[in-house]
């Protein structure tokens, strides 16, 4: 029995991704983020979402994509979207460049990632699906949020420097 899967698509550094909508709570634009000193490199800071403190994950960093180049003439380029995900009873925000659509997909249409896909991207990929002839990568949140970019505080590396 194949039940259709709802996916939320988005782009980071002009690449297309998707997550399963069941986990998505809401999408926020330009939400205030507070820095956390010594946080894991992939954790950009903390957001206040109606009284709950939610970490914001920089997908660019975790997916090892190029840093965003700031363009002064295009102001609307600076909009940062946060997809708030419920994961393991906790909320996290995924920082993305653009929000796409909510699409319906048959799980059979999700194909395994191609052999040519290498590196960080491959590690976090659950599979590949296509929307209007554009290939999207479906992210596996469990591996993504377990990655050392998200979990390993700077403390360990800095500690060795300090001593």
């Amino acid at each position, binding site marked *: 029995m194949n039940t259709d899967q709802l996916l939320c698509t988005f782009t980071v550094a002009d690449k297309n991704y998707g997550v399963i909508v069941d986990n998505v709570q809401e999408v926020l634009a330009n939400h*205030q983020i*507070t*820095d*956390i*000193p*010594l*946080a*894991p490199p992939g*954790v950009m*800071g*903390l*957001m*206040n979402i*109606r*009284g*709950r*403190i*939610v*970490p914001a*994950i920089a997908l660019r960093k975790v997916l090892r994509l190029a840093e965003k180049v700031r363009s002064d003439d295009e102001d609307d380029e600076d909009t940062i979207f946060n997809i708030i995900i419920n994961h*393991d009873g*906790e909320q*996290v925000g995924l920082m993305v460049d653009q929000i796409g659509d909510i699409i319906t997909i048959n799980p059979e249409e999700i194909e395994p990632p191609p052999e040519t896909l290498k590196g960080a991207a491959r590690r976090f990929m659950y599979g590949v699906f296509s929307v209007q002839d554009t290939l999207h990568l479906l992210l596996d949140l469990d591996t993504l*949020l377990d990655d050392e970019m*998200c*979990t*390993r*505080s*700077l*403390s360990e590396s*800095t*500690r060795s420097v*300090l*001593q």
Partner: protein
Amino acid sequence: MPQNDKALQSFLIESDENLAQLEQDIVALERAPDDSDCVASAFRAIHTIKGTCGFFGFSHLEALTHLLEDILGAMRDGHLKMDLDAAAALLDGIDEIRVFLKHINNEGNDGKAAPDELMARLHALVPEKSATEPAVVIPEPGVETTTAVTVSEASDDDQPHHENEGESGELDHEEHEAGAELSSTAAPTPTESTVRVDVVLLDKLMNVVGELVLTRNQLLQHAASQNDSQLVNLSQRLNLVTSELQEGLMQTRMQPIRNAWATYPRLLRDLEKKTGKKVNPTLKGGDTELDRSLLEAIRDPLIHLVRNAVDHGIESPEVRLAAGKPEAGSLTLSAYHESGNVTVEISDDGKGLDSKKIVRRAIEAGLLHPDQVDSLTEREKIRYIFQPGFSTAETVNDLSGRGVGLDVVRNNVERIGGSIDIKSTPGQGTTFKLKIPLTLAIVPALIVRCLHQRFAIPQVNLLEVVYVEADKLDEDIQTVHDALVYRLRGRLLPLVDMRTLMHMGTPDKQHDQFILVLTADQQEFGLLVDDVRDTEEIVVKPLGRLLKDNPCFAGATIMGDGRVALILDVKSTADFAGVTRQDRKLNQQANMDDRTHQPINVAENYLLVRPNEQTGRSAIALSKVSRLEEIRIDSIEYSAGREVIQYRGKILPLIRLGNNISTDDEDNEMIRIVVQPTEFGEVGLVVNDIIDIVSDNTANIERVAQSDGVLGAGILQGHVTDFIDSDALIRHYRDQNNNGGHDEH
């Protein structure tokens, strides 16, 4: 079936409460077997459990509770008297019921029957079946009152020798009450005024109210900036309502501390049995309320302290009698509110703590340097029992054990934002004083700014705030090889610059700074921040899984403007900054097996210097350094053939550390001196170079008789290093001068 689950759950909770009551009553009865109140109360408790487990069909549990009920029923009716054997058997029975309840909680059924041996012991206690049998089996709560009364009258007639007239009358009266209450427990009456609430629901409500409070704060800020009187009025009303709601909800979470104390009578009884000591407990202020999560958090520390007081504080009856004290030791637990905190005191009238032994042990464990002892107050000395080193004590003396696990107790108390203090008078007793905040979720904190960010520093860790003006920065804050120090009332306070530590940016030398003097693990350090704002009551929120190993922050809070501020974990920050090195010292102590070396405990920071052009290194105890100066070589003058400089309006004699009076100083314009206070006034040690400040000290100093003024040599940071004995050096210098017929004074 979820409904059944709920009923089962409330059966478990209720039974747990009833068991606690039962246990208390039995222990009380053991001391005063004639207390009919207690008998009645114990009977009611077991009767309720028995009744309900019959309803659920837990036959094994029912058999056991039935037996206990029989025994207590017989006691109630005066056929049986509580004695030590009976109490022991009943308590074992209670333990067994707990095993059943646990099994029911895990598996949903009552499993195997209770051990035969226990059942036999209990059976043996039940008196011969007699005419009083109906009193034991209570068919219906409704008729209970009358049955009980008639039976008790009958029993009084049967055994008139058992009680005297007055007592039996009283007993009769009690029976009426017991019967009446029994029927009220069996069928809830309309006067029931309490409701059981799920803790998860309460927590959730607490969170929602927290949000409401924050929204209120934001609205108030907004309304204040608006010129709308209607809005201001409304927001004021909202303000009042929210505060009331918050307060009310907080109160629902409050529980009297008596709940935590309920287990003590049993605990003390078992301890008395085990140690052969006698203890008279006094519990005061049981009505004092605090948040249930805090109550949970201090339950174990309190039990530990009580156990500790009996095990190690209170002496055996013989020793007590010999010391002219009453045979039974007294143990007092009292709780009361004090300046926004709850204070719990546990005091015994035992032998007290011997600060000399504690100090000796602390020195052995490498926690304390012998030189430091004199500067410690009595209170500071006994506080060493809270150090982790004491829990690994191997030395067998009467002190050992007193400290076992006390570091854990302290940690647990400090984790919830509390503090623990200790007072002790040798021969008269010891008092542990715990200060606990009223609630866990809300903490008073100082809000500080560092660069563009705000941080919250819990008030419990804050000692004082020192203000340093921008143009005084270089003068007041000294740097030794990247290590910052500040001289606070004569002591060198290690400083940590928050920006450097947390990789936030470079220190700011343009603006005024603040030093927060913080305490962690009894060690003080200063944290350099940009600005100090307000003190605020902040709502603590967890950081979540991704940030759980962050070395500096304990949580986060939401400020009035809706932004997030991080809460500093002072203890972890100190560890991270390397201010506290306790663990390492202990490890070294454990590794110090090689007894050919004469170990000298070096539990302090050292200034590492290069005395002369050669590559040799020397270490000077940092506590003996008052300042580091760079002076021009041409400012050196001579007095009595000795080098001196004019320093702060005085003459400062110089001592060359390397035995090379004349070097090619002409090449260097500046020389570095380490200013040290001595009994003869300040002197300056001339060194070639200052290398570092080290507190990591794996050096076993070997006493090599090299020259005067050198304590010995050891390996520090992988290099052979001479340890300077400043006192000897100065004495040597003085002697030379005196021999020369000159006097410095």
